[in-house]
């Protein structure tokens, strides 16, 4: 019904029976079912993604995107979070290095470089 991994869901109400909204559809779930679904709360209350999420490393140079998803563990990702790369943050891909790796992005007003191997795991939604 569309509630797969990486889906963006908004909880509308409920404690024993959960009512949530997903891609324009409303779905009801029993507590037992909802108990087994793990979600990552998002900071911002922005609209559900209009575009599919792609990895940061596959963005075209010059395009802007909003970060949607992040791996939970890994020293690199914690550090990226601390430097301001959080779900809901807007970024722009400035360029790639002449040899193709690493890539340079603009985030929160400054320029940051990271390897493609790290950017592969960061899922973003392109801004139209």
């Amino acid at each position, binding site marked *: 019904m569309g509630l797969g991994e990486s889906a963006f869901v908004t909880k509308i109400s409920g404690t024993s029976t959960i009512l949530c909204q997903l891609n324009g559809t409303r779905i009801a779930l029993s507590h037992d079912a909802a108990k087994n679904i793990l979600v990552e709360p998002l900071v911002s209350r922005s609209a559900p993604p209009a575009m599919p999420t792609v990895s940061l490393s596959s963005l075209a140079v010059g395009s802007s995107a909003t970060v949607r998803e992040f791996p939970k*563990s890994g020293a690199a990702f914690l550090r990226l979070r601390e430097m301001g790369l959080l779900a809901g943050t807007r970024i722009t891909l400035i360029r790639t290095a002449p040899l193709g790796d690493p890539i340079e992005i603009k985030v929160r007003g400054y320029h940051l470089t990271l390897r493609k191997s790290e950017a592969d795991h960061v899922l973003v939604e392109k801004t139209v």
Partner: protein
Amino acid sequence: MVGNPNCGKSTLFNALTGLKQKVGNYPGVTVEKKVGTTYSQHGQPITVIDLPGTYSLAARSPDEAVTRDVLLGRRADTPMPDRILCILDATNLERNLYLLHQILDLGRPVIVVLNMMDLAAQAGLNIRVARLEHELGVPVIPCEAVHGKGLVELRVAMSRLEIPLARHAWDVPAAIAPAISELQASLVANDGKSPLIARAEALLLLTDQDSVRVAGSVPLHAKTHEILQAWQKRWEGEGTDWAATLVNSRYDAIGTIAAEVVLAAGETGPTRSDKIDAVVTHPIWGWAILGAIMTAMFVSIFTLAEYPMNFIDEHVAALADFVKSSMAEGDLRDLITDGAIAGVGGVIIFLPQILILFFFIGLLESTGYMARAAFIMDRLMSRVGLNGKSFIPLLSSYACAIPGIMATRTIEQPKDRLVTILVAPLMSCSARLPVYLLMIAALVPGDRVPVMTKVGIMLAMYALGTFGAFGFAWLFKRTLLRGAPPLMIMELPPYHFPRFRDVLLHMVERGWIFLRRAGTVILAISIVLWFLSAYPKSPDATASEQLAQSFAGRAGHVLEPVIEPLGFNWQVGIGLISSFAAREVFVSTMGVVFNAESDEEDTTPLRDAMLNAQWPDGSPLFTPLTCISLMVFYVFAMQCISTIAIVRRETNSWRWPLFQIGYMTGTAWIVSFIVYQAGRALGFQ
């Protein structure tokens, strides 16, 4: 003083303390301790510690671990500071506020310095300083450290008797609040921390996944660890991402503040830095610029350094002559002239190259180009598991490994730094050049041989060394020093005009550190080496005979069985031993051994003498094969005590220099052996 890297902290530190600063070491770690003195409004001295730059108190490198430990009062050698100066870069306030947010948790007196206000204005940012002060509750001093603006106000703030405590009430996210309380309670009860510091530490412990612990830092009580592990296990089971929850919560709070305080004048077009970067990281122009800058640096170290080096040589020799003529003949005089003075000269001679290299490095860092160079080179470097920042130390090692090894300080990850240090001497340094030249002259005698052959052989040796370096780097990163691939998360700061004062201060600092730390070791060992070649004395012997029956000569005889399979005899053995003082000493030692005077320009007499040398059975000693074998040996062998001394200093132990001697000399022997024996088997004699 704390702050993000590139926030202008060092400029501010230099502006406050001037020449009244000292660079030392934090005991037990290879992190530098920078302490200076400045004066309050009323003339009272204030000690300022410039802590390593960091983005967060959740440390990812030893440098950051030291910053965290000093602020938390965990280091026995550095008491918790009375006040904290937090430097923020006004051009990207949000990210900088993250560190400040963590620091405010500590509940210590904090003064915020808002630096780079001029750059913020240029970027179209209008920052409401008074509003920020109101939001934070601590003094906020706007500053332009580069132009010296704001220093007076800063000194006034630093001189205040009382600094108000921050207005810093933010709610720890509900999911992790109970864990924080428990940890805090344990830290207060078992580790003896004050409540606020305990809470700050508790928060840190949660984001401290794989955080770095360094020597010299007081460990936490076992009970605290238990509680932490219990909670972490529980969260892992539940799937709670506690670290992210905490970071998000902080950025929420920061976002609120930033929204009130920063007024951006809308989207501005490409900045000056953007335009420069378009060229500097261009697939074609980028390489051209990098090549040009590296060539300029390299040529300077090779040629510009010549003049001061010759100057030093002449004056050291003159001093020695003076002492020779004014003192009575005897052992003491020889000790002073050939031992001590020569030893000191051997140390000082490195200064010009070190100063020039660090001038360039300081210049590149100051303008912001260094980050771009690392950015461009990273792909190549990471192929062998190295960091992009290893590029310049390795390149400089072509001139001399000593400044190259000192330059590895910029590499944050200790394993990457160590690997770079271990392989740097394989990049054929300029001291090997006289050895190569001598061998090539013996190898292909006669001026009718095309120059290209000689150049070709030379280049082959350089290539061999370079491949060796990268090969061993790859090997070490795979085996011994295996670690997570280096993080390449790096900020590209905006370009700016170099701050010459900072560059020169940095350069002088490095030179001084070299003299003080490495100089003593080098001097000691040179005297020992001199002793070995001068004693036991045989009066009325020629220089050659004296050398032959000295301790060094006897060592050469002892060494002979080991080096015979490589095509060397005991006379060459003496040369190998003397190369420990400096590789180029090989040439002059051969001159003494074979009784032929020679100087750098004209090696013909020496070459002829060597070509006439024979083994006891009458076969020639320096066959072409032996020459090649010797050159190959020099490519790989670790000689040069000065390098050993600097490796000892930079790694804080004797383990790694000894390992380096072992692996390099071992490889030298093996490769030389293969070359010589294979050559003989194939009939080349």
